[in-house]
């Protein structure tokens, strides 16, 4: 068992395991830090969404909380002008590549983006950027769920769950750069892939990209 240390988040002294990532220490203590790509069980954080920035005392630049290890005396602020700027910017970048129209979204009551917007006072519309073209194709081939790429934020939670927890390996990242996307090997439909419809990926999805056909927020 690792040693206990005391760290400070937003002025609150909190006990944590040494080495534990600050993101989880905060969330476990009901302190909100925006995040999409982090999974507690995942040993090595992917650090790809860039939403979990916090300000560490003594460091000029914001740091991602999902990679920041707790150690004795660490003092962190979840907000600062710099943090807010980066979070706002990353959030708008993600929105520019996400199909809006939340009213019709199956995840409209449990969406992580909506939660971040609420917590941080961000708008669910673009202010300085233009909307990018979206991947419109929806894979409805599985019996129980569907995959709408236009709402995918590339957080990679489904991919990790499918590979490491379900151990199915139907989902993976394909392509590079702006064309990077979540897909199946050789881009076959999910029904043709090794997918067993265990549903773990749908539960892991923070947005309306993966949703159960019968159990969306409407029902």
């Amino acid at each position, binding site marked *: 068992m690792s040693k206990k240390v005391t760290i400070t988040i937003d002025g609150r002294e909190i006990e944590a395991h040494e080495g534990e990532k600050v993101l989880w220490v905060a969330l476990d203590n009901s302190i909100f830090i925006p995040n999409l790509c982090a999974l507690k069980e995942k040993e090595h954080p992917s650090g790809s969404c860039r939403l979990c920035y916090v300000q560490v005392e003594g460091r000029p630049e914001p740091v991602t909380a999902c990679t920041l290890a707790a150690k004795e005396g660490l003092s962190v602020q979840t907000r600062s002008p710099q943090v807010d700027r*980066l979070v706002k910017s990353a959030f708008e970048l993600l929105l520019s590549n996400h199909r809006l129209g939340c009213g019709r979204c199956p995840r409209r009551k449990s969406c992580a983006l909506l939660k971040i917007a609420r917590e941080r006072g961000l708008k669910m519309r673009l202010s300085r950027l233009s909307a990018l073209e979206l991947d419109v194709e929806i894979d409805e081939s599985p019996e129980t769920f569907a995959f709408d790429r236009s709402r995918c934020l590339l957080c990679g939670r489904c991919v990790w769950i499918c590979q490491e927890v379900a151990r199915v390996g139907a989902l993976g990242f394909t392509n590079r750069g702006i064309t990077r996307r979540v897909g199946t090997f050789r881009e076959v439909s999910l029904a043709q892939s090794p997918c067993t419809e265990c549903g773990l990926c749908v539960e892991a999805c923070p947005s309306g990209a993966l949703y159960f056909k019968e159990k969306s927020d409407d029902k």
Partner: protein
Amino acid sequence: MTGGKSVQERYRRLKESALLREEDLYRRPVVRVGMATCGIAAGAAPVKEAFTRFIEEKGIDARVVEVGCMGHCYAEPLAIISKPGFPALCYGYLDEDLVERLVEDFLLNDDPCYEFALVALETNDVFPTFSDFPRGVHEQKIVLEHCGFIDPGDIDQYIATGGYGALAGALAGEPAAVLERVKESHLRGRGGAGFPAGLKWEAAVRAGGSEKYVICNADEGDPGAFMDRSILESCPHQVIEGMLLCAYAVGAAQGYLYIRAEYPLAVKRVQLALEQAREKGLLGTAILGTPFNCDLEIFMGSGAFVCGESSALVRSMEGLMGIPATRPPRLAESGFRGRPTVLNNVKTFAYIPPIINRGVDWFRSIGTAENPGTAVFSLVGKVSHTGLVEVPMGTTLRELIEDVGEGVPNDKAFKAAQIGGPSGGCLPEASLDIPIDFDSLQEAGAIMGSGGLVVLDEDDCMVAIARYFLEFTQQESCGKCTFCRLGTKHMLDILTAITEGRGEPEHLEILAQLAGDVKEGSLCNLGKTAPNPILTTLRYFREEYEAHIKEKRCPALMCKDLIVYYIEPSLCSKLCSVCVGSCPTEAIYTRTDGLKAIDQDKCTKCDNCLKTCPPDYNAVIKLSPPELLAEKEGKGS
């Protein structure tokens, strides 16, 4: 390590036989032809073949040897001719006729044809040497010392220069002594970030464990950069020796040279060098008779730019997608196969043998206090003498461009120095007096990068240049993190809009904000440095952006959507019609008065007419913004 005396003795024997072979070689005339990729591209292969053929035809006892690149790429194909009784002389711009003449006049008879010689390699009474030229005054070669002078395919030629002597000396002592020297030398990594090599090595030593790796980063993906390729093609043993010294210092028994697959000649020469080192007992098991074992292998990189990033490089070696990972851990703690790994650039390793040989004081006497040693640049673009140069850190950009590169050709005005590759910055005339070192360049908004320097002149549009580099990084982004994947895309879209005349006043503010956020927020250094071309051009050339946006005018007359071609009637001649024939779309017609004019609806702005219009007239001009045309046509017809 024990047996110090026998190591030195073994090395002494190797060196003695290498020196004997060399002495024997130079008993007769020797022609060394520059055959690195740059030389071959310039036509070195037929030049070498011509030397061999004419020498044979004339029955001369002379040797033709392949060497690498000596850095004067502008004058290739190049050859060095050494003939007993004469200083070794270097000849450039060679072709068959010149080769025939040199063989006939110099090798057969004793006329060195000084009128064709560029430079002599040794001091003499008749012909100037490198140090008699402005370039030679600034240049000081450590990494490139042997490049272009020795045969990379013959290990003895490297040994004859004292090569592998640093390794022999080190093996006679303790690994800690090597580490101590590298630390004290303050050598900073030359792959871009300038991290102190000694500290990195020390972290790998401290990491413990018995299995460790040394990797040489020869992924060199920057467009326009070719230093690492040239070094591997011209003097691979110096890099290999540096890697072995590192392996000894940190306790690694295996190393890899990660070379991009697009560098087949480098791969071939390194392969041969490794074989020869193994044969001589300098690589593999029981190196120089000591208990030190270390083998090196080549790993061919798949080509993506981001694979040069340390964590992506290691992942791609493990068969995974080349995508950067979050830190910690650093490679020195957990790298290749989860083991402590030292990754350094080609040049970083090449500095090690001279540092061990000549000592820390010598090394630190070159360059500046914080940035000891030299900087290696590939000098390209609008500069007279393109090539590979090595100057002490602290040399100014102005000295590098004006003295070493001999300035901007064709009477054009200098505009900017683009330094540091696609993630570097564009520095204006006013910044030319800053010293070249990691810290000063960073302060000015550029980076040292891996050493690409592109000179830009008045005809280069800074918005288009920023767009060009951003297009590269945007395409090379792996797409993993939000800022880099989406931020570079939006910045590119805005730059494209500006160069196409669709720029909006608020674009500059958005661009500056996005650039700042992507720089600060990205996961790896690809994203963190990608905005540099935008940030520096906004900082130093803002008026060019404003001209594009507010006046729809491209001051450099480069952005196609913002210019029109026009034939100035007062300069055009009835007697000439070359432009008419040069136009691929038949946009040029003859007016009733016999002068030529352009039908703008048909013109595709290919630039042919401007290029072919004879210098006597220079009647084709570009106008920006396009509205100027109405004014001109009103007056002209």
